[in-house]
């Protein structure tokens, strides 16, 4: 397995674990999470000071370690991975696992499971998002953990939950989006659904997993008791459908009809215009929404009071809704002469909700709002290189996040965790390494 030598700029000490600050300092999480959901569930917790020990299988790389999102290579689809990837080079893994410690164990070996038991005894939380059955095969049930540490918290996340006929079904973000109804809710009428163009449910199931861990910690703080929690990605998705779910079941009309979904029209007709309009360059767009007659007057002023806007067909909100195609085409003739940000700032100066449809390049490098709030955080990595990370989107007045390090290289913290956290002797750690346990 080829690896890139660490950059001389990064001495061992600059990446050495240190006591954490932040509101969750002192809380230890043993994290079996992999791919996206599990790592996203502990990302915020690691940012906010929890000591997250990421357990990895040294012979079965986390999928995100293999995905070819590399700084020094042209972009490729994530399925186009190398046969023998450098496990420390992927930007995606780095984005999800910063501020965590990393250990590698061969869970097929009893010595590795003994190490896990020692870690459980010193942890507050165990989290995982394997397919149901994997943790059981290793004997890592809640009952087992509870015997080792009575008030342990065990949070499990899977696509369909841990009971019911689909409990063993496989899921990735797009599957969870499909079976929860989210994909069907998005698109233009009469076409295939456009859905959500990324693994949104990986993020959201992960974030709900964060909630589960925190709720269990609060429960323990209040009662002294641990807890086992199971989370279903499908059910998280259903909880994100919004009122349209209630309408679909309560109205009896259902949503498999010619006028659903509504594309970019307002879902309940509260705004018109309400859409995404082409601007002056290829694939450049601006979104805008006008709620009610007062805003419509302001909108007309922003557009320079064109004569079409004063015609009877656009006079009232209801008429604008009824004639939205004609309205959109008039607006488009105006937006096409302008850049997305020009449209945005012009309309915003008249109190109209409008936003350039921003690229990630713009988010990271040109958005003054995100820049001033420090939303993206720069961290260096010996192999993946220096880059901006998706930071914490919340300002805590008295407990800021503690970004201490980018993601662990494979097995980077084996010695620290075994010797410093568990108190295992250096000789024994060497032995475990030689035996292929770590």
């Amino acid at each position, binding site marked *: 397995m080829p690896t890139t030598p660490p950059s001389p700029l990064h001495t061992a000490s600059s990446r050495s674990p240190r006591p954490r600050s932040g509101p*969750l300092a002192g809380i230890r999480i043993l994290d079996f999470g992999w791919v996206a959901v599990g790592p996203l569930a502990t990302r915020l917790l690691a940012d906010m000071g929890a000591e997250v020990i990421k357990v990895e299988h040294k012979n079965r790389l986390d999928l995100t370690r293999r995905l070819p*999102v590399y700084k020094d290579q042209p972009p490729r*689809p*994530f399925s*186009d*991975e190398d046969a023998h990837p450098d496990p420390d080079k992927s*930007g*995606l893994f780095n984005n999800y696992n910063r501020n965590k410690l990393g250990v590698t164990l061969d869970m097929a070996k009893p010595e590795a499971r003994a190490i896990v038991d020692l870690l459980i005894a010193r942890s507050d939380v165990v989290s995982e998002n394997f397919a149901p059955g994997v943790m059981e095969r290793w004997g890592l049930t809640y009952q087992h953990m509870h015997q080792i540490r009575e008030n342990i918290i065990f949070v499990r996340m899977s696509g*369909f939950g*841990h009971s019911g006929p689909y409990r063993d*079904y*496989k899921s990735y973000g797009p*599957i969870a989006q499909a*079976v929860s109804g989210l994909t*069907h*809710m*998005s698109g233009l009428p009469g076409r295939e*659904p456009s*859905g*959500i*163009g*990324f693994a949104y449910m990986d993020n959201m199931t992960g974030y709900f997993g964060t*909630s*589960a861990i925190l*709720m269990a910690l609060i429960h323990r703080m209040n009662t002294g008791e641990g807890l*086992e929690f199971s*989370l*279903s990605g499908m*059910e998280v998705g*259903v*909880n994100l459908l*919004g009122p*349209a779910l*209630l*309408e*679909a079941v309560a109205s009896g009309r259902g949503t498999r009809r010619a006028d659903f*979904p509504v594309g970019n029209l307002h879902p309940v007709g*509260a*705004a018109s215009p309400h859409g*995404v309009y082409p601007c002056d360059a*290829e694939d450049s*767009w601006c*979104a805008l929404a006008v709620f009610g007659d007062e805003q419509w007057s302001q909108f007309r002023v922003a557009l320079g009071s064109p004569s079409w806007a004063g015609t009877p067909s656009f006079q009232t909100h209801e008429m604008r809704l009824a004639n939205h195609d004609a309205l959109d085409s008039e607006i488009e003739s105006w937006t096409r002469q302008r850049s997305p940000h020009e449209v945005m700032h012009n309309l915003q100066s008249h*109190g109209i*909700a409008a936003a350039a*449809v*921003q690229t*990630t390049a713009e988010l*990271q490098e040109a958005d003054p*709002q995100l820049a001033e*709030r420090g*939303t*993206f955080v720069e961290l260096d990595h010996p192999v993946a290189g220096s880059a*901006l990370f998706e930071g*914490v*989107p*919340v300002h*805590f007045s*008295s*407990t800021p996040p503690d970004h201490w390090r980018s993601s662990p290289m494979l097995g980077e913290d084996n010695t620290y965790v075994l010797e410093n956290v568990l108190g295992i002797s250096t000789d024994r750690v060497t032995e475990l390494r030689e035996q292929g346990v770590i």
Partner: protein
Amino acid sequence: VEFSTDPAGEMVGKLLRSAGASVVKIEPPGGACSRRVPPFVRGDPSGESLHFLWYNAGKKFLTVESTSSGHDPALAELLAGADVVIHSERPEAAERRELDYKSIRAFNPRAIVCAITPFGQTGPWVHYSACDLTALAGAGMLLLCGYDDLTIAPVRPGGYQSYHVAATFAVNSILIAVLHRGVSGPGQFLDVSVHDAVAVSLDLANPYWSYPKATVHRQASRGAAPVPTQPAVFRAADGRWLQVNLMISEDQAWRRFVSWLRDGGLSVDLEEPSYEFPAFRREHAGHIYQILDAFVGLHPADQLFWTAQDHGVPAGVVYAPEELVTDPHLAARGFFAEVPLRDGGGVPFPKVPFEAGVGYAARFPHTGHADPD
């Protein structure tokens, strides 16, 4: 204590309520404006708002003459003992309503005050207006959603997702602050920005820019990517769509896929030895996907979902929301509970997605009706 009337703030109270917190929503005489947001039961605008029910079921409601903090004795008492205060005001309005942290802290130093707003409390865009569509646009999510034909405008995902993303961050921040405060510590102020929350929740899109400086392009029902990828939804015989995550580079996933097709009677030439090599499969991806498309077209979506999964192939029906209430898995898990409507009927309401306790015997309390108390 919740002052918000927009879905972002109301979702925060809803999620905390679902986890067992007692949530009191403060309303002016006549009720919060969100009580008048469509859709309505039976489409009747004078009736009960399903929008309001979705975001507020199970909360308690306190009507006060002035929703400024401290102007009403009942409200003042409530705030003095509150663990958490949620509002959706920008800095000046928060000060005007005495909901700013300084005002609340003056009589309740333990309070955790969470403001959830389009752009947060600071920055050059702090006073900009936003709705779900523009929030998704400005924060980079919208550009990832839509069709392969890039001359078609990006398409807004359904269901107020910008608010939901921000609400989960707000909830998690509140829980962190509660944990940090412990039993007797001081509260703090949490400034949650919808714009920021969505911008840090974009899956591959941010790393693709941070590392190879690549912009990803939207594709229908699958991940936006720097180069086009194969389709992921296929039309079944009953007209419904099936989502399939086909990973042709992985040998085990490939074998499962072929066994699914074989048992369905349409593996065609995919069992020939040349397909045992990932490189060959990648080279002939178009042909493989053609066969998959034809195969899916021969069977109803439910059957394909179940048989694919039985073979270990990640697939799922693109469910319409109303189909969820009859899905056998959710039914077996008791996921929906009937919530009463004000006029006597009822509506199936999803429970929280958490199961707690050994053997998952109990969920946290779910929703109740949204009548004013």
